[in-house]
């Protein structure tokens, strides 16, 4: 199944440069509808106002981390099926396993490249 390039994507990261990098990579992949939020709380507010085809989130943010955001999303009846990719420098196995248990669809360790991001989006949204 081909990727839906028109689907809105929410990028959640407190580091504006990373948001910009992911935005540019997504643009190169053909995605134009990209919103961003600087932490889990701001992301939840956005998720309640718009239906997103994918959430790409960092882990370590304040006040609400990406891990907490993931658990909120999976606990919310209206959001629980939203594809969720964690993009983070948290690379310990315990983090990956905790995120997987919480329902993350894929996990990318920073630093990453465009090919990795593309393959994970395809795996999560294109299958």
């Amino acid at each position: 199944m081909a990727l839906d390039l028109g689907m809105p994507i929410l990028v959640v990261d407190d580091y504006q440069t990373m948001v910009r990098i992911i935005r540019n990579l997504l643009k190169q992949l053909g995605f134009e509808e990209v919103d961003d939020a600087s932490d889990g709380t701001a992301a939840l507010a956005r998720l309640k106002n718009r239906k997103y085809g994918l959430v790409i989130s960092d882990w370590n943010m304040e006040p609400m981390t990406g891990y907490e955001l993931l658990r909120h999303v999976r606990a919310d009846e209206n959001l629980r099926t939203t594809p969720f990719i964690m993009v983070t420098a948290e690379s310990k196995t315990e983090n990956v396993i905790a995120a997987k248990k919480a329902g993350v669809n894929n996990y990318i360790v920073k630093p990453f490249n465009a090919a990795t991001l593309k393959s994970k989006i395809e795996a999560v949204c294109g299958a």
Partner: protein
Amino acid sequence: MGLAVKARSATPAPEKPSLIRELVDIADYISHVRNEIAALRANELTRDRLPMAHEELDSVVQATNAATNSIMNAAEEILCLPDDRNYRAGVEARMNDIFEACTFQDITGQRIRKVVDALRQLETRLSRFATAVKARDEAGIDPAEMERRMRDELLILNGPQLKGPATPQDAIDALFD
């Protein structure tokens, strides 16, 4: 009576020299601690060195932000260049902007070295002071530190690893296959 006087002078009070010795020891110790406190140069640290370290690190953050923005701007402009005969010149101009932005590293490197030197000096002085006064840390953990640790543990905040990712991407991918 004469006997009594004789008996008193024949029995020397043993506490007196010992007490004097103790007082002398305490005075020596206080003097030693005062010297060590002076060697700590706490006023110089709080007035000059630590504010300098703050300022230098703030400058580093600002310089890296500015450089990153310049590089990102140039890269985004390259992506938007029209594919015409001016394309190469346009790319070269932006590449020069990128080279120029990368010069931040020389200056930030020097700034960071100053901060590292200041921290090393602080560490040396504190370590010397702790040894001199035989300082022992208060039992238990600082409440603020305890709170931070509990949050980190609860939210599994390990932070980036020093020598690259703890789990390579391939191993993570295997968990999702």
